[in-house]
């Protein structure tokens, strides 16, 4: 049963063996695991439930509907746009379906440096396999590589750099190119399609359009969750197990608002976001980058996940529909419109950082969720490396010119000019930066002094509070996180089930 909070005419109190807060990748896995164990849980999701019929491929309607803060979430200095999903299925509804496992180097680092136990490569193998099977993960076929991604492929090949075709979780994709606005063709094997139906069939109850506002607890044991609808109705779930799965931003904000014991001030800290900057190549031939699978190829030449490496840039494509492009292209007025006329000739790459900068989630006036994040000097250097690499790839692929959307725009026509992309170009607010992968604010680890939850996902200080989303990750992943989130939720689910059984 999925019931919208908007339909409630009075306050509601329900009892359940567990309550899952947030129904993205992690929450959906846990809801299914509980249901499979004969423990039909209740889930609260602040966004709505959508069917593919509602995905009308219109940016101005889908972005406010599917993204937090109507697509306008920013870091508190307004320097970085942070795109996060809301709704049943969370970000899996509008992500670009990239599937990469948590890198072995990262899992080993978490064990070595943060004392994460039982989550090494071998420990995680079964969870990865389960998730990849459920989501029908497969390599994107060669004929699914559109001209924008082909520009990346050709550039990498010309330079002799490392790169390759990505894997995805689509079946029956027709290449409409509107993935980020929800798939109207239901070709995404996402959480809403794959996991939630089974959980519902087994008795799980979902309340959409209900925002969890407080975790009820006595400082040692969780007692329930309280939520509110837009209309002000209160939904109270009485339970002894609460699973936070509302993203690295939402879960941390709820933990802070609920005043969960946090003697070492760890909740909301260590935020990583994979900040990304873009570079556009202008080609003589039409690219029509809005058509076809948006992201199908990657460059890993500048990514080495070894702890001491100084290569921390992952490069892939980043095409946007008209509104997104208009916002990113610098300037305004006639000059801006002239740039927009080149829309179909643009190929766009993004340099996404495996970031070391650590931000935090905080509450303004005790209620409004805010993100503080400033890129450190090391990450700024990496951004310069990344943007230069993107420019080099695009020129090698045959771009007539390359544009870095700085203020003022930086246009590069020859390899020798690439050095003009320097630290000054990437200073705050000078280039549009976007982040779509918040992680790390409720991180796991052995020591309560440096982490929020144990390696089982359970809170160090409050029994029955678990975390099952990207906030678990002690560091950045260096790549798309959806498989990691699904798999960690799958891997930790037995602990949650055991707690719910009591």
């Amino acid at each position, binding site marked *: 049963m999925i019931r919208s909070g908007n339909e409630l005419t009075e306050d509601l109190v329900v009892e359940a063996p567990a309550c899952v807060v947030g129904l993205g990748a992690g929450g959906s896995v846990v809801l299914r695991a509980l249901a499979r164990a004969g423990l039909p849980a209740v889930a609260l999701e602040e966004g709505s439930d959508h069917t593919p019929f509602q995905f009308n491929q219109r940016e101005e309607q889908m972005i406010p509907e599917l993204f937090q803060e109507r697509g306008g979430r920013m870091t508190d200095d307004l320097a970085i746009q942070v795109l996060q999903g809301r709704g049943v299925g969370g970000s899996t509804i509008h992500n670009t379906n990239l599937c990469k496992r948590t890198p072995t180097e990262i899992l080993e680092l978490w064990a070595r440096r943060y004392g994460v136990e039982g989550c090494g490569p071998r420990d995680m193998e079964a969870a990865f396999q389960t998730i990849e099977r459920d989501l029908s993960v497969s390599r994107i076929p060669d004929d699914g590589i559109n001209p924008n991604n082909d520009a990346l492929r050709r550039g990498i090949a010309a330079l002799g750099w490392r790169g390759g075709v990505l894997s995805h979780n689509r079946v029956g994709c027709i290449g409409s190119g509107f993935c980020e606005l929800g798939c109207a063709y239901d070709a995404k094997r996402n959480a809403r399609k794959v996991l939630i139906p089974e959980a519902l069939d087994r008795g799980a109850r979902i309340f959409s359009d209900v925002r969890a506002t407080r975790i009820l607890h006595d400082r040692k044991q969780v007692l329930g969750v309280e939520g509110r609808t837009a209309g002000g109705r209160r939904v109270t779930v009485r339970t002894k197990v609460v699973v936070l799965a509302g993203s690295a931003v939402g879960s941390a904000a709820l933990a802070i608002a609920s005043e969960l014991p946090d003697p070492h001030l760890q909740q909301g800290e260590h935020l990583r976001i994979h900040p990304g900057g873009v570079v556009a190549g202008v080609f003589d031939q039409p690219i029509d980058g809005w058509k076809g699978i948006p992201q199908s190829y990657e460059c890993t030449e500048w990514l080495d996940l070894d702890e001491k490496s100084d290569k921390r840039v992952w490069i892939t494509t980043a095409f946007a529909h008209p*509104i997104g492009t208009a916002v990113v292209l610098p300037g305004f007025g006639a000059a801006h419109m002239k740039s927009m006329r080149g829309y179909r000739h643009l190929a766009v790459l993004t340099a996404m950082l495996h970031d070391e900068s650590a931000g935090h989630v905080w509450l303004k006036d005790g209620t409004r969720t805010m993100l503080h994040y400033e890129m450190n000097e090391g990450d700024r250097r990496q951004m310069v490396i990344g943007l230069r690499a993107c420019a080099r790839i695009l020129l090698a692929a045959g771009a007539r010119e390359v544009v870095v959307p700085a203020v003022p725009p930086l246009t590069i026509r020859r390899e020798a000019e690439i050095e003009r992309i320097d630290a000054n170009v990437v200073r705050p607010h000078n280039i549009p930066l976007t982040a779509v992968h918040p992680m790390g604010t409720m991180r796991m680890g052995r020591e309560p002094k440096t982490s929020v939850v144990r390696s089982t996902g359970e809170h160090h200080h409050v029994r029955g509070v678990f975390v099952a989303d990207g906030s678990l990750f002690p560091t950045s992943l260096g790549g798309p996180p959806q498989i990691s989130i699904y798999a960690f939720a799958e891997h930790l689910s037995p602990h949650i089930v055991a707690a719910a059984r009591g």
Partner: protein
Amino acid sequence: MNRRGFLRAGLAWAALGATGVAALLRTSGYDRADRRVAYMRALSAWHLAVVDALADRMCAADVDYDAPGAPPRPREVEVAAFVDAFVADSEPPIRRDLLAAIGALEHAFPALAGQVQRFTALSPARQDAVLAAMEGSSIDLVRGAFHGLKSLVMMGYYRDPRTWGVLAYDGPLVNRPAGGWVPLRYKGAS
């Protein structure tokens, strides 16, 4: 945030606060007879005038509007109505920020370009100078306000299919006539 950044932010917030006061005092001289005002849910008459002026500059065409194939004017595609709906449907803190940014554009940001008149009273060239000063400002909040306002107006403009000719964008696939691609039927469809 370092100390310098803190001071800058403090000054910017002070300017925004002062703008709020100024906005309360300086709401005369706007076209209250504009019939659209009656349909606005979030924007007042003076907000509407500011958004109109902003959209005219942000989305100014690179050709004469009378030229064949010229893009539509922002008012033709009702950018202000879109902005009003967006602001009205936003949660209260975001609504407050957006209205504050509109107010600051009208009453505070012209000073960045050495202008003493409000934004809507400036010539188009001077309005452009104000926007350029905002975009290039060293104050985070000013640049952030520019970005926010630009995003809102661009969304209002490029949402309209009449603007897509500029881009050679063929729009949502679900609305295109059947051609080379055959959309799959959603399995739940009858």
